[in-house]
């Protein structure tokens, strides 16, 4: 299953500001529901970003990231650069998107 994520990258004086939003429940696995039953862990746990095909970031996430993970990064780049962003959750669902630096 491939789900969509939101990626926005904007260049300003040579620096690209990258914003990634992954719509995801991100359950830590330590919370209980009203009946006191533990809600199973379900969270985004790894990701990668490439810039014009070259690896840029390798990301690993723990269960303590907020719901709908919102990540931001900065790196040198220019308008028109191609970004590929992909994330996997702990049930191996793939979230990916491609974006062009604005």
């Amino acid at each position, binding site marked *: 299953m491939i789900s969509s994520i939101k990626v926005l990258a904007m260049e300003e004086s040579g*620096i690209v500001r990258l914003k990634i939003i992954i719509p995801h429940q991100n359950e*830590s696995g*330590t*919370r209980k529901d009203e009946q006191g039953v533990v809600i199973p862990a379900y969270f985004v*746990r*790894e*990701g*990668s970003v*490439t*810039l014009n095909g*070259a*690896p*840029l*970031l*390798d*990301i*690993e*996430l*723990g*269960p*303590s*990231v*907020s*719901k709908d*993970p*919102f*990540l*931001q*990064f*900065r*790196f*040198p780049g220019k308008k028109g650069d191609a970004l590929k962003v*992909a994330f*996997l959750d*702990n049930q191996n669902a*793939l979230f*990916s998107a491609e974006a062009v630096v604005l």
Partner: protein
Amino acid sequence: MRRRQFIVTGAVSSACFLSMSPLNLFGAWSAKDFQQCPIEQAFMAALGTSAPVNSDQITIVAPPAAEDSSLVPVQVISSLKSEALYLFAEKNVTPLIFKCTLQGNVIPWFSLNIKMKESSALYAVVRSGGTYFMTSVHVEIVAQAC
């Protein structure tokens, strides 16, 4: 003749490699680093040291008093030349929250929203030239949401 053969084989194998790349993008998520344990043990597992060197060249921007424990905005900035960045919350069940390897010229800067179990220290660790440096701030949880 041999050389042509080599080029063809090379091209085919690199094509195979490229077609596999969506899955190759992912290194194995290290369950060892993200274990449920006390902070010292989490440092040891993820960094191989329980006492990174304190540094004033790393800054954590986080609210001193967070109103929503399920959404604490955190920003980490470093002026060290960094190969990897880490974020830990001392009293979370799983202390390691975020781990990122930087390639190329990525700026040692990141921002994300985290969940905190209770008021505790946040540690940002940077690997620079093979050495681990860290800084910490205390975040007070005012209202419990999770």
